[in-house]
């Protein structure tokens, strides 16, 4: 672990590091509680340039983490956005210094309910303060301070990551040159709060949850967390995607069994999603992070007028949604675009045609990637960053 002072040398690529922040200046959370010992787990890719102007912060979604382009330590799977991050890739690590950190409240190394409370020597559990998207961004801002970066070239993220992007643009406009909120919203809808509540109730109904104190009972609410994941996973897909992938196909059998086994492939798939999720995610983290999403309401925090959240913004925005996303449908993105128009911000907005639902932002969608690439290149030119080698040849 390193100290919280800004580092003087230029940081280079390194996966899964830790830094502890808040010693010198406690981090004050929206709930009023102050934390003076926040550990942040993060990965970086590429190299920060001499004037520290080429940094891209990638914000992860609800169940994501900082392993954006390195293998996940538990599942061994490639990083969740690894096709997009690397040398010569969309987030070209030959050009950009890419940072991704596990959010506050997470369970992959950043301070959260599963981590040890330094004051008690025991896991925080439900004594962990309730956090917000704003708190997550504040911790990220401290990490960026630690790197000695005054302004990020770009902040990008999908879903809850997109909420963080919007919060960054709102709370630190001068520190965000370009912002890319993807498949997200400026406030969590009633329907989404409802889905989150189903997930939380599933966890809390599991006797192994032990009122949140499962760590001291040497158990984990696996069944509840699995059900929460199964319910949520449906919202990440779309009816056509489910139909195409599974239809009414039966799982390893020729006939229905007149029982409650996983007769259908879609059941088997969801059960698998649920059971593998519990190996890598903490149930209390799930409660806290979904709550943070529920509380997110940029308009509400700004007198009910979303445009007020962005008044005077100098950032360039690229808002992206997907046609089949019913968790964060296009009208949510359009509301952000209208607010940005109302303050005459520089904004691009594309609705990408895809039948893959909300998860489209994690998948191979060529038109989505072309949009990202075009926006990034243009922003880089405006920022005075050197063009990519491919671009140089084209011109």
């Amino acid at each position: 672990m390193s100290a919280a002072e800004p580092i003087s040398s230029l940081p280079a690529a390194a996966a899964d590091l830790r830094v502890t922040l808040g010693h010198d200046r406690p981090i004050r959370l929206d709930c009023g509680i102050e934390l003076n010992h926040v550990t942040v787990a993060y990965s970086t890719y590429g190299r920060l340039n001499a004037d520290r102007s080429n940094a891209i912060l990638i914000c992860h979604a609800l169940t994501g983490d900082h392993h954006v382009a390195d293998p996940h330590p538990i599942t061994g799977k490639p990083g969740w956005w690894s096709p997009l991050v690397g040398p010569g890739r969309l987030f070209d690590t030959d050009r950009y210094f890419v940072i991704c950190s596990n959010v506050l409240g997470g369970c992959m190394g950043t301070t959260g309910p599963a981590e040890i409370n330094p004051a008690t020597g025991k896991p925080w559990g439900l004594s962990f303060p309730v956090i917000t998207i704003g708190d997550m961004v504040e911790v990220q801002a401290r990490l960026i301070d630690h790197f000695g970066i005054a302004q990020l070239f770009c902040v990008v993220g999908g879903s809850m990551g997109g909420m963080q992007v919007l919060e960054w643009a709102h709370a630190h406009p001068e520190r965000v040159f370009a912002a890319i909120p993807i498949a997200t919203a400026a406030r969590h809808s009633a329907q989404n709060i409802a889905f989150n509540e189903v997930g939380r109730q599933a966890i809390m109904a599991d006797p192994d949850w032990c009122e949140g104190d499962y760590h001291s009972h040497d158990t984990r609410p696996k069944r509840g967390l699995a059900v929460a994941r199964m319910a949520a996973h449906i919202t990440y897909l779309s009816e056509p995607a489910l139909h195409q992938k599974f239809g009414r196909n039966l799982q390893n059998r020729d006939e229905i069994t007149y029982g409650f086994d996983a007769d259908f492939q879609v059941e088997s798939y969801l059960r698998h999603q649920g059971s593998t999720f519990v190996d890598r995610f903490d149930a209390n983290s799930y409660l806290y992070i979904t709550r943070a999403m529920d509380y997110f309401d940029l308009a509400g925090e700004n007198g009910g007028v979303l445009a007020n959240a962005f008044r005077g913004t100098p950032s360039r925005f690229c808002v992206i949604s997907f046609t089949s996303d019913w968790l964060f449908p296009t009208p949510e993105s359009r509301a952000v675009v209208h607010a940005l128009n109302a303050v005459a911000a520089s904004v691009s907005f594309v609705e990408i045609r895809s039948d893959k639902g909300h998860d489209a932002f994690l998948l191979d969608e060529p038109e989505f990637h072309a949009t990202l690439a075009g926006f990034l290149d243009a922003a880089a030119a405006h920022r005075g960053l050197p063009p990519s080698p491919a671009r140089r040849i084209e011109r």
Partner: protein
Amino acid sequence: MMMMVNGALRVDLKLIAEMIEPGARVLDVGCGEGALLDWLGRHRDVDGRGIELSMAGVSAAVAHGLSVIQGDADTDLKDYPSGAFDYVILSQTLQATHEPRRVLENMLRIGRRAIVSFPNFGHWRVRAHLLFRGTMPVTDTLAYQWYDTPNIHFCTIRDFLDLCRDLAVRVDKSIALDRDGRVVPLPRVAGIANLFADQALFVLSRDPAGGE
């Protein structure tokens, strides 16, 4: 792809482009793949904005690095603050809007000037078509059958000037174009232009005194 990196621009767009002074704030409504914005960026140092209805057009424009949003003139102009732009451009799109009058009002609210071009339904060929054939005119500039046309609010040059008068809009410039978008030298008499111009292009501004 219609984006022309080497600077060739559709004739009527070139005409518009050359009216824009360097560094101006420009909103191109119905910008397609952004050819005009691209040209203005390269030649006039304009960091312009665009609105386009088609998903393919928006994708191409944004992938090319332009600030373009998916939307349309009817629904997306009302959000912009007054006076946000020096020029709001509506090229060959007015006749496809649901509420052309409100679109024009919004253009002149958010822009210091509006540049509007549209196909002239008063052209003699259109009149002759209706008179002699008795069917809805299908011409090079108006190439759709009545049942599949996106053009729902046709007008003639005279209609348009009447609307400008109603809206107390000042006509700073009016140009008659042929079907390829080239300027046709016609006498400055509205009736003549209305008969012989395939297309018309107007530069408008708000006139507190009212009317021309």
